[in-house]
């Protein structure tokens, strides 16, 4: 399988990465090279094989549904590019 310019533009949109036409032109053959290479996996017969989900067997631990920290608003906001009135502030969402 190979990707077209249009597909790559769509992926960039899904990935939320702005991309110039120039960069797109450069990336399409690169992605196709990588995709050609991973096509190798098509050779492997995986009929009846379960996909690996946990690399080392482990049980999922659940904890009590209780607040274990909190009261750290200022810490959480300390790295915000823009914070106002104790909230993260972002550009307008609804036009």
């Amino acid at each position, binding site marked *: 399988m190979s990707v077209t310019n249009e597909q790559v533009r769509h992926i960039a949109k899904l990935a939320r990465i702005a991309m110039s036409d120039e960069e797109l032109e450069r990336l399409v053959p690169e992605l196709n090279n990588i995709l050609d290479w991973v096509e190798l996996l098509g050779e492997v017969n995986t009929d009846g094989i379960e996909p690996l*989900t946990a690399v080392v067997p482990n049980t999922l631990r659940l904890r009590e549904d209780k607040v274990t920290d909190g009261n750290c608003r200022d810490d959480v906001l300390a790295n915000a590019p823009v914070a106002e009135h104790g909230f993260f502030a*972002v550009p*307008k969402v609804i036009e």
Partner: protein
Amino acid sequence: MSDLTYLTIAQLRDGFRSGEFTAREIAEQYNAAVASARALNAYTVETPEDALAAADAADKARGNGELGALAGVPLGIKDLFATRSVDTTAGSRILKDFRPPYESTVTANLRRAGAGMLGKLNMDEFAMGSSNETSAYGPVISPWRRKDGGNAALAPGGSSGGSSAAVAARIAPAATGTDTGGSIRQPAAFTGICGIKPTYGRCSRWGIVSFASSLDQAGPMAKTVRDCAIMLEAMAGFDPKDSTSLDLPVPAWEAGLSSDLKGKRIGIPKEYRIEGVPGDINALWDKGIEWLRDAGAEPVEISLPHTKYALPTYYIIAPAEASSNLARYDGVRYGLRVVPEGGNLDAMYAATRAAGFGAEVRRRIMIGTYVLSAGFYDAYFTKAQKVRSLIKRDFEQAFEACDLILTPTAPSAAFGLGDKTADPVSMYLNDVFAVPASLAGLPAMSVPGGLDEQGLPLGLHLIGRELDEQVVLNAGLAIEERAGFTAKPQRWW
């Protein structure tokens, strides 16, 4: 006062305890060494006060007789570990000036053991790279130089390139690394030091900037096998804050060290004899087999039939997980924010991520987004997860015939900066020997074995059964004792 930067962690620890020198003297010598080696670009942030404060605490504690395992030992910390109030950028522009209000579990464990911090170590951006060239801070330059290759700047390996260069150049006695597909072992091999990636789940990933969550694992990079054992003991341990952390006691790896391998069978996978690998590397591999035989082990040929599929599998799974993990960098809560004139929220996300991520990270996010997208998910991602099951099964079957696997660490010695940047696939091939163990979650270590004809270090790679770090370390020790690797880079920096 002699030059303490030549000493191992074990020697620093023991010398400090017996009163040969103080922790402050160690920290001062290292702080001076760090400041005089900026040409290597190994540190992104220097924290000499932190090293001195921990040293003074250790000196004070020595009087009271209550010393942690790493009391008096300052360390370099890969910039992927969150360190409270100290810049943590993962080598990326998008996290420039990020100062976490929390400390990663691994570094908290090291601090609890008494270690100080010399600074944060440069790395490939988000740990994506094998040469340290993807860092937003520019590449680390290896302290090593080719014997007759002029003064070409060489790659220290990646992604833990700052860590490997710092230990090799003696501007840290040891350092933390992280390994997703070889990022501890390949740089260790390139710079003539030791590094071990433990079993997935041994070290908490809490507070380590995520790349590929099912693969990422922290480990030590140090001068000797013993130092790796000491440091890994301090780093590892159950952490309720990481749901993938294993709820198991940490073995006393240092106390268990023994290079007597009687009764052990060493698997030599025939699929790792691949074309195009320099003769030096295969010759060292043969020597490694003889060293382990000399230590009492019996070499046996094994087969890992899915070896050639490991890299393509990795380059589906790791980008897929990365594309999901890196979705959090959007300019809202931390890091860079770029808002185009009059732009809305979506425009802010797209512009922030375009400006904040470097080319390799954008490339991998794109691949990851593609292989997870509707219509391609089964063909790529599910397929890769199935092949991953087969790769893991290969190892399980091999370990019925052997106790440990020996291979080369990397298919070449250190290459020149810029040599492989034009072709992503050729760069990815660097991890051909390291990736399979990562996909299977197994403990694996690189130990220096010798030099190539250019005088550059080459590593031997040991892969153990799940949770069997001890056998890996023991075989590493056996190789270390026999290889007699004492070469050091000539100081030019």
